């Protein structure tokens, strides 16, 4: 189980996936010249920071209205949850479910998933490695899909524009919502899934710390 590239003093380029002989903690890939490390530096710290920022943005995104609906000049502002309640009252259950999942369940479960991943990378957990890997893939896949509600409101505001009769205006909540989505994507990008495997090895195979030795005597590929 210890046939890891890190232990052999090798590093995988995150951009072009070429295996490099590591001469230092940080170096340029011999193929695509991307500067990278064997593990993303301070991965957990960055992920935690972005996730907390997203969690903070989640609060105003739900408190402020997403859009204002004008019917015969009378404004009617609604937040995400109020909008869903209106749809249920109107009997449009499928739309209510789609909006509820896309703009409330998905962002919240993404933030929770990121916290679970960060915990798994640090402590011993009951989740198997397969489940952890799946969780990471789901969080990564969900990234852009939370933007759904932003696009819906944008299209609504552009199309429903019949002057005095009915019109839709974008409200301030959507800005916070967009920022939250962007922050969670940054959080998922800065998380290094290899930490999950490193941590599993540390806890289950009694290998204290994989300390990489960069004692490769070869010439630097781009030296001089």
């Amino acid at each position, binding site marked *: 189980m210890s046939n890891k*590239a890190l232990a052999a003093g090798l590093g995988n380029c995150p951009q072009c996936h070429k295996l490099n002989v590591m001469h230092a903690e940080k170096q340029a890939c011999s193929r695509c010249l991307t500067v990278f490390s064997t593990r993303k530096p301070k991965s957990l710290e960055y992920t935690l920071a972005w996730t907390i920022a997203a969690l903070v943005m989640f609060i105003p995104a739900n408190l402020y209205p997403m859009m204002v609906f004008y019917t015969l000049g009378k404004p009617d502002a609604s937040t995400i949850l109020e909008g869903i309640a209106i749809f249920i009252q*109107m009997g449009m259950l499928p739309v209510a479910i789609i909006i509820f999942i896309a703009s409330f369940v998905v962002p919240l479960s993404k933030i929770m998933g990121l916290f679970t991943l960060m915990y798994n990378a640090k402590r011993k957990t009951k989740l198997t490695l397969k489940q952890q890997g799946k969780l990471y893939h789901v969080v990564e896949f969900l990234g852009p*899909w939370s933007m759904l509600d932003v*696009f819906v409101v*944008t299209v609504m505001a552009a199309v429903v524009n019949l002057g005095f009769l009915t019109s839709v205006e974008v409200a301030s909540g959507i800005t916070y919502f967009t920022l939250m989505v962007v922050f969670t994507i940054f959080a998922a990008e800065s998380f290094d899934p290899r930490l999950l495997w490193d941590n599993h090895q540390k806890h289950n195979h009694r290998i204290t710390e994989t300390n990489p030795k960069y004692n490769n005597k070869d010439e630097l590929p781009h030296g001089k």
Partner: protein
Amino acid sequence: MRNNSVVNHMIACNQCDSLLPKPILSEGQNALCGCCGAMLFSKKKDAINRTIAVAIAGLVLFFPATLLPIIGISAAGLYNDASLLDCITILINSKNYIIAFAVFMFTIAIPSVRLITALYISSCIKFNRVKPSLLVFFRSYHLLDTWTMVHVFFMGVIVSMYKLSSLADMTIDGGLLSLVLLLVCSTLVSVTMDEHSIWDELEKSLEQ
């Protein structure tokens, strides 16, 4: 360079960092990690020609997809429709600059840059004109992958169509069809593009 020859025949899994011997694939095969099951790389059929064809089609479709109206509604004798560009101008007019910027980047700027990059790299390789600048282009192509959101925008249009159909008479315009075709092209580019062999190709040509 004793160590380098070893490195060229090995591959590390991007997800769990397992060190594995690099398999030699024939066209249409995938290589999976034996430890965690993540995909290592795959070799695709006729990748360069297909990528060029799909990228050109996608770039042509960008004009109708952004300029033609997507959907329109009519109620009490009034009619209004909106294209993708109208969505962005309305956001700018109502001073929502952050969302206007985000929508513009995710649905127009990033997808088009990605298609142009795919076209440029593939045609340079096809006509044997590999330059060091291609490395920068191909790296940016990788970076932009997460930020392409044409598919999410399309889903947003579908949801708002459902919402609007109960509100007023709704008409579907040519923009929607172009948007569907553009979505097909931008997805197909990631399917046809054989990133692994392009990297190998670039490495081989630039070493000389």
